[in-house]
């Protein structure tokens, strides 16, 4: 972590302390559940953002990898008794392998055509798992056998444990993004997102870079799939390959700030927290109102701040910093 200023390190340390202490202070299982969802969807957003944000390859099919991760670990656990910890990595590898042919096909297309093709891949996978009942329980899905408190099988009595796993995943995603952003790879990704022809002209092997970032993005998304299934103890094609997962992954990044390190996290905090709170306040009395308010927030952000909330925050920070600098200057 060279190159970080003292202040950045200090605020990161404080953030880490708060996040680690949070489940010790907050004991409401409703609140912890929201935290876990925020961390998980931040992580999925971060995974999506590597390809969709930096390289602007707007995939709406990341549910394909979420689902493959979920099914791989579940099949390994139920049919072969293999721990989901191993299944998680195996799911990541399966997702990577799947991303190769999917990428080879979809990357032939650009812009909206690419996006539509990615939607199709997730839908096709969902249909495969729905129709081929011998493969994995068909439309009924299955519950994950409850083993009580079995950390080696990724099952815990305490909800806080799931919280820490999700926190670990998010940290992993952020560290990877941070390192990529600052390396040649980050520059190449943004260059491809800006103008693929111009990137090729300065020696960027665009197809190879896109393939590699897709591999990584798919791998990380699959980890989230395994975790989610373990957390809710249930899997079926409709949840594992849910179009919502694909949309959410893109949405949190777009709302928070596409192609930025913290964008997906900020976006998720806003969207997940809002939707959960609206659901609990309005969901029972005025059914459907929470979705309307949620959509209004989305529209407001996209209309007023297409750069995402992180753009607003950066501007505000710069304004404050300038004011302080000016005041110090006046004093001196």
């Amino acid at each position, binding site marked *: 972590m060279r190159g970080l200023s003292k202040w950045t390190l200090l605020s990161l340390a404080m953030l880490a302390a708060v996040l680690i202490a949070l489940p010790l202070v907050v004991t409401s299982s409703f609140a912890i559940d929201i935290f876990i969802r925020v961390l998980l969807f931040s992580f999925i957003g971060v995974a999506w953002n590597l390809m969709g944000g930096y390289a602007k390859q707007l995939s709406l099919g990341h549910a394909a990898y979420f689902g493959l991760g979920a099914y791989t670990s579940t099949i390994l656990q139920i049919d072969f008794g293999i721990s989901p910890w191993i299944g998680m990595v195996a799911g990541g590898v399966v997702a990577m392998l799947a991303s190769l042919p999917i990428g080879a096909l979809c990357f032939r297309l650009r812009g909206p055509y690419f996006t539509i093709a990615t939607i199709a891949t997730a839908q096709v996978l969902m249909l495969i798992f729905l129709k081929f009942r011998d493969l994995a329980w068909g439309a009924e899905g299955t519950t994950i056998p409850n083993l009580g408190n079995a950390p080696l099988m990724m099952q815990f009595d305490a909800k806080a444990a799931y919280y820490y796993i999700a926190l670990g995943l998010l940290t992993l995603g952020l560290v990877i993004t941070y390192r990529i952003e600052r390396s*040649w790879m980050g520059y190449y990704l*943004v260059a491809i997102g800006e103008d693929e*022809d*111009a990137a090729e*002209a*300065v020696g960027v*092997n665009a197809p190879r870079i896109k393939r590699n970032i897709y591999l990584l993005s798919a791998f990380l998304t699959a980890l989230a799939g395994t975790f989610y299934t373990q957390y809710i103890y249930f899997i079926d094609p409709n949840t594992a390959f849910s179009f919502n997962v694909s949309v959410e992954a893109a949405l949190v990044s777009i709302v928070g700030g596409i192609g930025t390190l913290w964008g997906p996290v900020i976006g998720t905090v806003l969207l997940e927290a809002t939707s959960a709170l609206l659901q609990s306040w309005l969901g029972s009395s005025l059914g459907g109102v929470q979705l309307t308010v949620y959509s209004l927030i989305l529209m407001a952000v996209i209309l007023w701040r297409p750069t995402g909330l992180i753009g607003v925050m950066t501007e505000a920070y710069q304004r404050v910093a300038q004011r302080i600098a000016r005041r110090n200057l006046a004093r001196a």
Partner: protein
Amino acid sequence: MGEALVIRNLSKRFGGLQAVQDVSFSIQENETVALIGPNGAGKTTSFNLITGYHRPDSGSVSAFGREILGLKPHDICTHGLARTFQVAKPFGSMTVLANVMTGAFLRDKNAGVARDKAREAIEFVGLSAREQTPARDLTTIDQRRLEMARALATQPRLLLLDEVMAGLNPSEIDQAVALIGKLSQRGLTILIVEHVMRAIMAVARHIVVLDHGQKIAEGSPKEIVENPEVIRAYLGSGYVHAPTARAN
């Protein structure tokens, strides 16, 4: 001095349009060659054929003794051919420095090394004051400068400039001419597509004239301005070349 680029019998057809037909020419190392001709003559298409953006129907292109036909644009860049675009294509959201670093990463993946090399290229084109400006906020000439710096950062041996003077005012054209002169002095081989005749006269040692996809003339600037067919097809009968001071 060897041959930097040899083009033989290059042809490309787009549907019913023969964009480039049987064009051959070659460029000596450290020479500046201009490719001129009316709009639609096939100049930019030739560029795209040389740099791998289009596949020719027939013909061959070799650079520094190696056949490069059929290679992808990034491979061709790795072989030492860097190009700019007729309509500048900066990476808009990136700063000038980040744009040029992207080019520098081709030869060295270390960010520190790339930054130093990028700064050097930026200084060379005279953009140092704009280093932290997002590329989309640059003026036209600065965007052209940026494209040149980005191309230079890939450490090319042959630079292909596609209408870098278009849209520039007279004093900016003088600056651009001076810059190209400086590049040539550094030992770079340059192929330039241009409409601004006084710039061509100032920088080119050799001129190739295209019309309707075919090469109609080739020679020294003096031979070209006196060639009746070039006058008919491109320069116009009223063309009198005003002597320009070679800017360098």
